[in-house]
């Protein structure tokens, strides 16, 4: 008899320690990733209650949010950042947790490091005190962001209580047009389903559009599941997944890998797998997409005008007015041509090799517009090193980009990289919330790294398909 469970339910069942009478599942967690911002209070809870880390070998820490991407000399200029760095160093030493710190060339954004090291594998349950943990779903795992109390629970027990969500299959069929990237696909999905459309659901991304994506592209898609309200998103494991994992430091080795492979592939939702909901989109309808507002669903295709207030549902009008006012934009105006002040290529959404290669290809031989400050922040030290081995840093620097050290940087501006005043930033990150990039009045336009690169050169939002320098491929 075929297994009609989708991947999510197979993996959930496998990790169910017990189900409480109220319906909550005590879920075993296969991999716990931690970082400096959401863990210090959790370790304090363990100290207060005289508890140990239950499975230190299933726990790994890195530092990313507060890391300066310029000078990293210790102590940091920011006392508070230094205090947090010292805290995670002490906590990991005291509790026997491996820490990939700045001296370790494996350090980087936690959602770049996990996959890069082969820690992230199909069929795992993965948690981290960070909402973009959904990224790891790209491998066919259940990967969810958790709060600090949950971090303490998982440290102390390797489990937590969760209610099983429903599963919605989000199908996209067809080939993406030139100049349309994985980032545009997820921005489009969020635009269509809304920022709260996914609440109560896990998203399975399926269909031929995702089938042909690389693992890095799949990570970009799953990363922003949370922006659509879904606490996790995933893509079924296939040969692309297996090929990516082969030979990575924490991947299974030799005979283990050979045994792992059929198990990983067996987890994929079958043809007759059941879902609580299915929505279907056509890749041909997706164009390069740019956010214009203060939620990730407030986006338009780059050739499209902003919405008109009278054309949207009455209950949405207040939010649209608030967004237009904050952004200094007019209803019905084109997004193309909107002047930018800053260009940021980085974040757990888009800071991997394929992102940097594509952005470098676009800026090669061009100069950043005179009024634009442009920075590239690789997702990890290994990404940075590989990019430099390929000479990408020289291309970026020749164009006028700053080439920085690895970290979260201007995605959320907990380090010194911040917008100033009302600056407008073309950003490859994931959130355009008010104040997100470090200035309370700063403004963010989310787009693909290629579109950020083109905007940096032209000094305004540009349709990558029309950008002079880029033979779009």
């Amino acid at each position, binding site marked *: 008899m075929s297994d009609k469970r989708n991947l999510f339910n197979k993996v959930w069942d496998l990790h169910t320690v017990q189900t409480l009478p109220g319906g909550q599942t*005590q879920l075993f967690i296969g991999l716990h990733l931690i970082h400096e911002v959401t863990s210090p209070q959790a370790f304090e809870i363990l100290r207060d209650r005289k508890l140990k880390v239950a499975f230190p070998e299933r726990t790994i820490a890195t530092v990313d949010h507060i890391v300066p991407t310029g000078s990293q000399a210790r102590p940091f200029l920011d006392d508070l950042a230094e205090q947090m760095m010292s805290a995670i160093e002490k906590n990991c030493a005291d509790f026997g947790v491996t820490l990939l710190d700045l001296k370790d060339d494996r350090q980087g954004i936690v959602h770049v490091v996990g996959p890069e090291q082969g820690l992230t594998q199909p069929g795992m349950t993965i948690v981290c005190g960070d909402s973009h*943990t959904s990224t790891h779903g790209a491998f066919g795992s259940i990967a969810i962001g958790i709060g600090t109390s949950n971090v303490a629970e998982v440290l102390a027990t390797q489990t937590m209580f969760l209610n099983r969500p429903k599963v919605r299959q989000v199908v996209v069929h067809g080939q993406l047009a030139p100049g349309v990237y994985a980032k545009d696909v997820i921005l489009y999905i969020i635009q269509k389903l809304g920022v709260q459309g996914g609440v109560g659901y896990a998203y399975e991304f399926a269909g031929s559009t995702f089938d042909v994506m690389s693992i890095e592209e799949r990570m970009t898609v799953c990363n922003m599941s949370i922006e659509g309200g879904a606490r996790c998103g995933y893509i079924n494991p296939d040969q692309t997944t297996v090929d990516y994992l082969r030979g990575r430091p924490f991947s299974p080795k030799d005979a283990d890998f050979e045994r792992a492979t059929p198990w990983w592939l067996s987890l994929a939702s079958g043809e007759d797998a059941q879902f609580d909901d299915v929505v279907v989109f056509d890749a041909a309808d997706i164009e390069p997409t740019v956010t214009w507002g203060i939620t990730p669903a407030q986006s338009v295709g780059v050739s499209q005008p902003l919405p008109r207030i009278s054309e949207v549902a009455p209950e949405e009008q207040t939010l649209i007015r608030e967004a237009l006012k904050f952004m200094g934009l007019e209803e019905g105006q084109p997004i193309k041509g909107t002047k930018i002040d800053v260009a940021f290529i980085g974040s757990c959404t888009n800071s991997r090799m394929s992102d940097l290669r594509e952005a470098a290809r676009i800026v090669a031989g061009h100069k950043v517009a005179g009024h634009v400050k442009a920075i590239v922040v690789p997702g990890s030290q290994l990404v940075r090193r590989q990019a430099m081995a390929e000479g990408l840093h020289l291309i970026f620097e020749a164009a006028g980009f700053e080439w920085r050290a690895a970290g979260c940087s201007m995605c959320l501006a907990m380090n010194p990289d911040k917008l100033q005043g009302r600056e407008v930033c073309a950003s490859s990150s994931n959130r355009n919330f008010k104040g997100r990039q470090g200035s309370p009045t700063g403004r963010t336009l989310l787009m693909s790294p290629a579109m950020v690169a083109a905007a940096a050169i032209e000094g305004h939002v540009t349709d990558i398909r029309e950008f002079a320098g880029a033979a779009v491929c």
Partner: protein
Amino acid sequence: MSNNEIKSVTATGISLLLDDIDTDRIIPARFLRCVTFDGLGEHAFEDDRQQDPAHPFNQLQFQGAGILAAGRNFGCGSSREHAPQSLMRWGIKAVIAESFAEIFFGNCGSLGIPAVKASRADLEKLAAAIQKNPKLEITVDLQKLTVTAGDIAFTVTMPDSARDALVTGQWDYLGRLLNAADKVTEHAKTVPYLSGFRA
């Protein structure tokens, strides 16, 4: 642990009926540069308050409020527990909203903050009543799943598991999880990737 039981919350109210209020707005990221949650209360909605003198959290008459009436998808965005921590430390003891983002909802549960859902129409009525009389006493009753305030009364919803945990005082999830430590050790043996993919 009967002293942890939260069967109802009674306090004055404050309303912020906007949709998609994200956790960066509740507590901007720069205030996450800390190793304890102390002191977060004074920074709740800091940037919104700076930019809008009329923001409810700026208004003298709402200082001391304990029940927040909010809109749709309240607490979306980041997983930062700093967000409900800052609200709690500002004085919020319960949140009534049209809907919640999931991680925020879970974090409220971890802190013993009831987060209940109500219809937009009922929230608008409640917000109007709070505006009219900031001293109006509001009660969120978790056993009856009702909100009462003066002559206003309406029903609210909350998942059974979250409600039961508060009402029975069992929202210290860590203690309950620790009780199952033996089961967890046994379960780990059945997880394929912890046993060389032989399980």
